[in-house]
């Protein structure tokens, strides 16, 4: 159609989607732009997995060296709270997936509703986590030299301060990811309120969704390893 090389739309092939309001001039088609963003997101998620893998390895090493201590110490984690948080996070993952679907079909009220639900579940997760952490602080079950559980009437044989170091590092880093998730979800919610997203352009919703699913994915492994395994 167009052979005008001066125009930014010069290389858009016939049959490609129409450019949207957020189409950057250095891409040939909107789909190319979306694909590039998604590729970048997947590379970022890979680095996230590699970052958490170090902590998972630390857990497995502690478990390998001190199996009895890990078994005794993990009994002091609140399984009910962990289970509630698992269900909360899985539900938030579903609402996030539904928000992406709403964006794909161009239903802005549904995007906003599902994003709000996701943010709400993320908040519930952090509240439960807050109560869990408070209980651990009160019982002196803290990492390293701060471990004083024996002063509070809890005697765990071995060296449980190492287990609680691993516990706080893993759930703490995961909790930071949930907080960041609440932040980016709020940003996407504000943009959805402005009506930025539709079937032609929903890259931010999709990529924030991918991030949120990864946070869920990590918890799927954290929960049985820290709370349940015996």
């Amino acid at each position: 159609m167009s052979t005008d090389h001066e125009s930014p739309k010069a290389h858009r092939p016939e049959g490609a989607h129409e450019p949207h309001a957020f189409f950057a001039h250095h891409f040939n088609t909107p789909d190319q732009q979306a694909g590039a963003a998604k590729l970048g997101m997947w590379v970022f998620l890979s680095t996230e997995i590699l970052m958490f893998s170090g902590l998972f390895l630390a857990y497995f090493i502690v478990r390998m060296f001190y199996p009895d201590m890990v078994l005794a110490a993990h009994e002091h984690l609140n399984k009910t709270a962990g289970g509630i948080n698992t269900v909360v996070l899985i539900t938030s993952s579903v609402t996030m997936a539904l928000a992406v679907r709403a964006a794909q079909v161009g239903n802005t009220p549904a995007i906003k509703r599902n994003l709000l639900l996701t943010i709400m579940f993320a908040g519930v997760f952090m509240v439960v986590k807050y109560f869990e952490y408070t209980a651990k602080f009160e019982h002196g079950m803290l990492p390293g030299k701060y471990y004083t559980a024996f002063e509070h009437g809890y005697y765990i044989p071995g060296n449980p301060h190492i287990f609680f170091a691993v516990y706080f590092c893993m759930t703490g880093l995961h909790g930071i990811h949930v907080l960041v998730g609440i932040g980016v979800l709020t940003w996407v919610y504000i943009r959805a309120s402005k009506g930025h997203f539709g079937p032609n352009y929903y890259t931010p919703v999709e990529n924030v969704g991918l991030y949120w699913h990864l946070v869920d994915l990590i918890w799927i492994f954290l929960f049985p390893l820290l709370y349940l395994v015996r």
Partner: protein
Amino acid sequence: MTETKLHLHGKPVEGFVELHEHISPVSTYMKVFGALLVLTALTYAVSYMSLGPASLPVAMIVAVAKASLVCMFFMHLKYDERYHVFIFLSTLIFVGIFFTFTIFDLSSRTKLQEVQGTFFLKDFDREPEAPPPMPVEAHGEGEAAPAEH
């Protein structure tokens, strides 16, 4: 998919295909949600059966099943470009290399140190500063009643 040609600097580019996002029906998401809840209940139940050394592999298999469901349906990897699947799986391969070599090193190092007669830090047990009081009766959840001082 329509046959489209991408022209770059006036020349057609080979192998250009437009992306077409797959839109899953809501029922698919609800089925996956149900499956995830069932698997969560299964993990919970399995932890109460004393499976002994099998408990870790079983818990991991259930977790991997849940993770695959999330990846395939929520993260759309099932319908996505294969290249994203490749990135994801290659990450897991590198995690596997990381785990294998570190665990192999740590588990074989013990033997070396035994041969050399080196004191190994692993056998160091931290003694609490205060003499440990009697173990608390309720030895279950974290909410166990704090002991009187």
